[in-house]
């Protein structure tokens, strides 16, 4: 099958591309960033998804399936640019996919869609509302992109659409919100809170996306791996130490003394869990995670050992 991947240069998308290649698909990649050691079989296009050149790639290559992974979550990257990528980009991808005859579109979204809060249930179902827009307004554009992708289910019924809400990634690439948070020697946490974190390995994400294509999945699905663990356990098992501080101090010190510069909404996500129920996805696709929690943490801490004292 000819499969087009947007945002292919991201470390997680590279895993997806390699997996699909190994399964015998031909891969067309779009990304503004270079993928220097891309396998020669991958047809790379260094174009911006929102520009005319990207449409040309769809027109000429006529992919049967499109996997949209070109959304940005980087919180430092809060700008008009980010909105254009997440909203304008998503719209363009679905438009081109439909216009140039793709049969299947897979939107790769995030489980943080559901938001974190003191009175939120554990194990969200797909029909739970996107509370992130109130608990973490900085994620509003990602929620909107997710919902926009969902509208494709009724706007363009001929294009089979799957919206995946995938939990945090934790593994050898060290990318993603959770992994970035765990990089340092000491991980700042809020005193008196220890939320569950749900994460999965890059290879399992690649398997989940490949299964979605194989089954030509239609609808909205949560995707998760092993059982969640409290943040303190993830920190300890990756060889780091927790640095608990009262919420007031935490908020005042954000962005100073080596603490990450997080928006206020992120504090909710360090106090309360976002945990999803992925049973429907597992049932429909037969997905089973190959990496348990220990293996995810081990692969991450091998690739990113505890930084030594300066």
């Amino acid at each position, binding site marked *: 099958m000819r499969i087009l991947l947007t945002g292919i240069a991201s470390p997680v998308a590279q895993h997806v591309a390699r997996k699909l290649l190994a399964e015998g698909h031909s891969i067309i990649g779009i990304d503004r960033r270079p993928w220097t050691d891309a396998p020669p079989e991958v047809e790379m296009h260094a174009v911006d998804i929102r520009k005319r050149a990207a449409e040309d790639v769809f027109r000429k290559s006529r992919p049967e399936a499109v996997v949209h992974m070109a959304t940005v979550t980087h919180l430092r990257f809060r700008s008009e640019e980010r909105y254009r990528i997440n909203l304008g980009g998503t719209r363009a991808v679905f438009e081109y996919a439909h216009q140039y005859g793709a049969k299947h579109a897979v939107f790769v979204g995030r489980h943080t869609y559901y938001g974190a809060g*003191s*009175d939120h*249930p*554990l*194990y969200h179902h797909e029909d739970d509302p996107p509370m992130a827009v109130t608990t973490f307004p900085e994620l509003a554009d990602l929620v909107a992109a997710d919902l926009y992708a969902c509208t494709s289910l009724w706007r363009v019924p001929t294009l089979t659409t799957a919206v995946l809400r995938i939990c945090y990634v934790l593994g050898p690439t060290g990318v993603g919100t959770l992994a970035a948070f765990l990089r340092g020697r000491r991980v700042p946490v*809020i*005193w*008196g*809170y*220890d*939320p*569950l974190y749900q994460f999965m390995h890059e290879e399992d994400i690649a398997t989940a996306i490949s299964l979605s294509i194989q089954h030509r999945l239609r609808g909205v699905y949560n995707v998760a791996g*092993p*059982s*969640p*663990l*409290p943040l303190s*356990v993830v920190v300890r*098992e990756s060889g780091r130490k927790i640095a608990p501080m*009262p*919420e007031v101090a935490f908020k005042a010190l954000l962005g100073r003394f080596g603490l990450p510069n997080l928006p206020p909404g992120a504090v909710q996500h360090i*106090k*309360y*869990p976002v945990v999803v129920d992925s049973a429907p996805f597992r049932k429909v696709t037969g997905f089973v995670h190959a990496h348990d*929690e*220990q293996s995810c943490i081990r692969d991450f801490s091998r690739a990113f050992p505890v930084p030594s004292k300066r």
Partner: protein
Amino acid sequence: MIPIDPGIKERVDHLALPFNRYGYDPYGISKRHVAEMFTGLSFFYRRYFRVKTHGIANVPRAGRVMLIGNHSGGYAIDGAMLITSMFLELDPPRLAQGMAEKFINRVPMASLWSSRTGQFTGLPETAERLLEDDRMLMVFPEGARGTAKLYWERHSLVEFGTGFLRLAMKTRTPIVPVGILGGGEAIPSVVNSKFLGRLVGAPYVPVTPYLVAVPLPVKMELRFGEPMFFEGTGTEEDEVVLEGVESVKSRVASLMADGLLEREGGRG
């Protein structure tokens, strides 16, 4: 950190919960936190309140079940002792999971301990999921109105919510009614201060004649009734559901009355 009692640790190992290699179940319930909690609570259960149980054979040893009890004043000492009785008196032990007031998860440390010991915020979604997982759910349908009872109201029952019965019907869960005596004597609150409550983030803070609501070492008693089953889907009209709610409420009331009668008989 409390040193864990070895006997308690052994009982925790016998809990029928799917703990992973780190000692956490899929909801984040932690073996270590549960053991520490029961090490502390067992002192209160055995020595301080010298809790007696009656009819504990009525509690199913496995499978989903809902314990429905009465609150009696102050704060939820009655709930804590009921949870402890399920852990200490049943073989194998069971972890009763309460449905906590929303403010608890907003308070530092209280949030952590309630999350690690399975005492989650009372949400219908959470309750339903726990029952579908064949857990033991503990519900006080009087809610915060129940703990807000003053000393002279301790043997009364205020209005029961209907959510628990709808849930029991929907998930086909047996209800075990529980009458709890002594909680009102333990914390003889004469007034509930909303002002102090606002300061600590709770709905109210109970005030006793000796001001601080430290519980008194009074005897407590838990009386368990036979399991009750309700047919239906949980989507019935209010009148139908209320009928079931009233029958549970009157069972709880009669269990409390039995206990009171026995106490008075004992004295006379």
